[in-house]
């Protein structure tokens, strides 16, 4: 029998071993898929993350409410004229995360600010109407956001994100 193999002359025996090893490896890798993917959100969690509707009528000017969407607090603020002006009277380029107030609200709905109320530093919930800009102040590590939810000082790197939302009527928004 000439089964002695060398790198130049692979034998049928080598082929068999490599084939068996490869098939076994593919099987082991495929078996890992369900074991890992089970950790992703399950179907009921995904279904529960469907868009929600928020009625704006009870929110008076200068007030804000906190609603939950996908387990995240969403701040809906009814801004005063002064708060809107404060947000617009800044040089956008001078901000840590430059973004104009226009880009953070819906056109013609300047008074409504909708942001995800999670500090972009390490995930604490900032307090509304606090801090030197009358926006949001995060008590954990002292990040200060303005009336547009933009980061002005402190360790947070970016502005409070605006969730996907739209006005379904003048007094109702759908988040998600």
């Amino acid at each position, binding site marked *: 029998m000439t089964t002695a193999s060398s790198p130049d002359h692979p034998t049928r*025996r080598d082929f*068999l*071993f490599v*084939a*068996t090893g490869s*098939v*076994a490896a593919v*099987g082991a890798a*495929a078996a890992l*898929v*369900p*074991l890992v*993917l*089970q*950790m*992703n959100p*399950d*179907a*009921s*969690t995904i*279904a*529960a993350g*469907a868009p929600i509707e928020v009625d704006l009528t*009870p929110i008076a000017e200068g007030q804000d409410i906190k609603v939950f969407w996908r387990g995240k607090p969403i701040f809906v603020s009814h801004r005063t004229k002064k708060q809107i002006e404060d947000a617009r009277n800044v040089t956008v380029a001078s901000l840590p995360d430059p973004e104009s107030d226009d880009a953070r609200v819906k056109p013609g709905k300047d008074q409504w600010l909708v942001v995800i109320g999670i500090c972009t530093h390490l995930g604490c919930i900032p307090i509304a109407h606090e801090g030197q800009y009358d926006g949001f102040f995060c008590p954990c590590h002292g990040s200060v956001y303005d009336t547009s939810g933009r980061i002005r000082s402190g360790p947070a790197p970016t502005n409070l994100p605006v969730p996907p939302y739209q006005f379904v009527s003048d007094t109702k928004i759908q988040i998600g």
Partner: protein
Amino acid sequence: MSGPSDYQPTNPALKWIERRLPILGLMHSSFVAYPTPRNLNYWWTFGAILSMMLALQIVTGVIMAMHYTPHVDMAFKSVESIVRDVNYGWLLRNMHASGASMFFIAVYIHMFRGLYYGSYKEPREILWILGVIIYLLMMATGFMGYVLPWGQMSFWGDTVITNLFSAIPYVGDSIVTLLWGGYSVGNPTLNRFFSLHYLLPFVIAGVVVLHVWALHVAGQNNPAGVEPKTEKDTVPFTPYATMKDAFGVSCFLLFFAWFIFYMPNYLGDAENYIPANPGVTPAHIVPEWYYLPFYAILRSIPDKLAGVVAMFGAILILAFLPWLDSAKTKSSKYRPLAKQFFWIFVVVCLLLGWLGGKPAEGIYVIAGRVLTFCYFAYFLIVLPVLSRIETPRPVPNSIADDVLAKTGSKSTPMVSSVIALAVAGALFAGSVQDARAAEGQEIPPSQKWSFAGPFGTFDRGALQRGLKVYKEVCASCHSLSYVAFRNLADAGGPGFSPAQAAAFAAEYQIKDGPNDAGDMFERPGRPADYFPSPFPNEQAARAANGGAYPPDLSLINKARSYPRGFPMFIVDLFTQFQEQGPNYVSALMQGYVETPPAGFALPEGSYYNKYFPGHAIKMPNPLSDGQVTYDDGSPATVAQYSKDVTTFLMWTAEPHMEARKKLGLQVFVFLILLTGLLYFTKKKIWADAH
């Protein structure tokens, strides 16, 4: 694990590690260089199979614990949400639940192998006793795991088994209270069982390490039962035993996959798809098949304490086997009498298992006593006597001689015994169904279902029509709590689009709240909502239905069954017949008889149904021709309604059935390929060893 290693790594990094922690040397000497007798047959691969099963059970179990809620109000529902909502949850659950049975099948073969070849004899006594400890731990773990889904059998199995301890004189009741953590089986019991069910597998793993350690000190026994003397008698563990084990494991996985993908409920009990109800005991309490022989021993003794003692004694006696059988010859191959008695003992065990699934009455009780006597007689009379009077045949001089003598005579006995064992095992498992020998119930006719068989799929039209029948007829009394509107748009379901499912949901009013004022309110349903129940609670349902509680229909097709009888349940294993539930539900819809047979006393407020156990059902005949209008031209008959609604309810019970069978086919193609490759690889490797 067998003395100092001669393993010398050349890589400097490995050298550095090896000098500080010689773990590579340990691995090398235990699983590479370790000399293994060259005449081992495939019965010896069950050690590797068991190791794999333990690892699989731990992996799938740890994963399921991520999704399971050990609380009496949520356990059943959380298991259902694992199966329905978690990604691949149905697969993991099937693997874990059938895995328990596979684990026991493998351990029984492993134990009988040890028994036949005398693997418990000097110097392997401690190895054997460690095995008995592992077996006891497995039984405890399996039992506690069976409690966790909190179905009817979980609850009543728990009640019966914990009550065994009440047989202990003086302190029995206190011990039972201690086990329960209450005045009855309840939430504290479930919580501690979950904790222990998580802990014990790791204890098993620890004892397995000791078991393997002891094995590697004494060396493996072998079919000849003579110890290796020269190097010619052994081959290195790797690649020889490794490849043989890999082939054995792969074959076992094929067997395992049959149950995971095609017969997930064959080894289970339909009763356990009914949520635990502390007020109603199922008519036939049967433990899982792997406890049946001991259950039979328990029941055959008329005294409570003696029964419990006999049952535990039947297991503990195994630990004394090395001293009960003092014959010098190990392998039964060379012990003509012991060999015969061994097979008689196997049959006794199987028959005891069969009896364990039978009702404890009449001839069964007598047979149980006779067989219990036989069981103990094997250990206490047969083996001690045989070891004194039997003249063994001469054993081979060495393992090498044994191998030489065998070349030529191929191992056909192995194949036939595997077949015999498979049939016996099926008989055993099927006897569980037998136990429900239904009194006063006619067997429903078998119908043709689109979802039956390995390639079965749901008939979309039937699912949609069935949904209509449920909504217009059944829903006035029966809930469908485990099904959400969004499921209607799931793959493998009735084929709604997400928009259709949302529109369907919006037709329902769902109670929500509290709102900002603290009030509950109603709103239109959303896809994420579940089908609302017609009654706010069980009491209201009973009050409106003459005292009967209309069961939730989500799982009804898996929660109803009937005995198939011998030999059909063995045939079922191969034909994948598992449509008892649908046959029954569909027959029940059509089984109403206006005038009960003469002599049948129909209770007030009941109706006569041919297929309902006991015949007196509180539900009036729900269907009549023309009751529901079909848009697709299907006949508006009771027969068609029954068929459609049953198909729909099969989907609600098993929403991922199509995905399961599809993945099953892929897994089978893969496993057959892998098994084939492993077979030829193993053959090549062993070619120069024979």
